[in-house]
């Protein structure tokens, strides 16, 4: 079970989870898991720890999460009205969108020219980093504990001292002709 920041309420958490799930989608964690769109059958950014990373003071975005969550739901309401969608009102507006609409809205939010784009780009980057580099965890520990992103990518395990070494690294043979104008120092002419 990954931690979620305790300074966010359920609506804020669910909204930001839905955002992270659009960046790296995952499987629903339980049948009534509305935050997760459910377009993949293995874990995505949320199970990888996106909310934990976003709430980490080191990111510098923690204080912006509550306002970004509220803005995201406002933008989702605006979007739904514009494209003629009627949203269920028992979940936050962004959560009520299906995956394709969530993705379409995020593309609008991060588009050049949108004066609000910086905040959305940061949410996007950290959601991605939770999955593909587990920046909220020591990498060796995250791998040992089966971090879903690093595992899915096939990130190698370190040696017992927590450091990576690859003794098998080279085909060990000549694979191309050297450029004819290479100088004695090994540089281009």
């Amino acid at each position: 079970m990954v931690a979620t920041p305790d300074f966010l309420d359920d609506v804020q958490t669910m909204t930001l989870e839905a955002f992270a799930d659009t960046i790296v989608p995952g499987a629903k964690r339980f049948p009534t898991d509305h935050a997760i769109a459910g377009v993949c059958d293995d874990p995505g950014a949320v199970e990888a720890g996106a909310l934990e990373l976003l709430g980490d003071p080191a990111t510098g975005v923690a204080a912006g999460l509550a306002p970004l969550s509220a803005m995201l739901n406002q933008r989702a309401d605006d979007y739904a009205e514009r494209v003629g969608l009627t949203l269920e009102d028992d979940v936050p507006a962004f959560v009520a969108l299906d995956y394709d609409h969530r993705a379409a809205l995020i593309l609008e939010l991060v588009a050049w020219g949108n004066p609000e784009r910086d905040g959305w780009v940061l949410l996007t980057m950290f959601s991605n980093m939770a999955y593909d580099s587990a920046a909220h965890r020591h990498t060796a520990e995250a791998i040992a504990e089966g971090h879903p992103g690093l595992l899915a990518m096939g990130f190698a395990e370190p040696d017992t001292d927590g450091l990576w070494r690859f003794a098998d690294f080279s085909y060990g043979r000549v694979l191309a002709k050297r450029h004819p104008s290479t100088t004695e120092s090994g540089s281009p002419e």
Partner: protein
Amino acid sequence: MTATEKTDVLIVGSGFGGSIAAYHLAAGGAKVTVLERGPWLSGKDFDHDYLLGSSYTKVFDFVAGDGMSVLGGNCVGGGSVVYFAALPRAPRYVFERHGSIGRRMWPAAINRQTLDPWYDRVSDVLPVTQQDWNDVTYAGGLWAAACDHSGHTANPVPVGVDAKKCTNCNWMMAGCRFDAKQSLLMNYLPAALSHGAEIRPLHEVQKLSRTDDGGYRVHYNHIDEEDYRVTTGSGEIEAKIVILAAGAGATPPILQRSEETLGTMPHAVGRYFSGNGERLNTAIINEERVAEVLGLRRPNGKAYEANQIGKGPVVACWDYVDSALPEYDRFSMEQLYFPPGLGTILAQAPDAIGPSWFGKEKKEILKQWKSWLTIFLMTEDDNEGVFGPPPPTGNSYRISQQMLARGPLRYDPTPNTLHGWAKADARAKEILEKDGLAKVTPWTNDVVGAYTVHPLSSCRIGDDPATSALDDRHELRGHPGIFVTDGSSVPCGLTVNPALTIAALAERAIPGIVSAARDRGVEVTYGAPLPTSVPNSVARPAA
């Protein structure tokens, strides 16, 4: 009242431009003080860890601008600690480039021939070595084999890596844990220290002002060692000579902020920024086709699946590093490794119907990460980057405690630059998609704009005062006694990795700086023997 601290030569930044100057001036007898905004890490301080707060986020900065994001070193040793240690010399045609100014951009005194002796010196010190094919990693080997299959040549690149110590861990962007990478912590910096130079980490220079005796007062802030957004104090040092080497992303804001006290800056300060025309492409390798078409096979039976293994770039194709081609048609194509996080977010899913850089289709290519091959293109851009007004401190508005920040650089690529990128993208795609070897897409510019790991030219040398901030001795026009020796002094993109050229230009600038220091009453001579390498990266001296 406390007297203001004084030194002979104050150096801002400890990368190539700062370290080389620090050594020669200290060895020549000057009192040298180096202020470095980042921390001082060495050896075992360099983590294999993506956790925020590890060396990976401490030692470099990622500053997002408008249309251009810059990655740069932020530690003692600067770029040399975080770079990939590819050290080719710039090709001859680079020195003849005109760019968009209608005349040669480089000073008349500098061409490849006149710079070669200075390249030789740096190459001896680091040292720069030539790899053989047994040193070439799987990623480099695959790129070489693909080039060969398309009728291209490919070279193992000259590097500053001790192959005997290298474990091919590919963590070199977080600093080299094994002291295999020949950073400045293993040559110029320990040599400078042995001659009495003082290096102060976590000292971020903000601006300069003039003293009554024609020298300069350097104003700095102390930076918190964990949270770089926090200033823990400030101070001033007076110097007879100031050498700015804060990096092409950081030197201009210091000078812009100093305009209030020093007077008008040359027009080219904070203009003509080049991202070295850089561009990245991700190839998703078809393992079966690589085995069938290229006949590649590892001992474990895999054809490749080796993205994570290696030591950055080891093989480059220089077939388009060709003086017979017109400007903006010339580029190099180098295999590279970029770690997850920064190295994955911008990669695009080939043939995506929905969003290409996030979402479900992107997730599918992440599952093939072991079969990624990254190709780094260095093209000719148009020096179109311009710095806006400087932020209140440093070179950016810091967002995260470390690494991530927003900066004032604007970069709107011209048709020439776009042409160069498109040409190089197309050639890399053609080579790697031949016979189904891979699917290739360029990194998106939709997230952080264009990007560079080799910022250049934002305070450049030249003969024309209208388009260069420095004369050919690297002295700031109109402000005698201030020199700039970092990547900002390089006039234009080089179509190859620029570290050796930055270093060679710094070596070349030293006799002139020594002469200027002597004119200002500093007892210093030029001609100290070149430093010798030490086996272990130099640690911060005990307090």
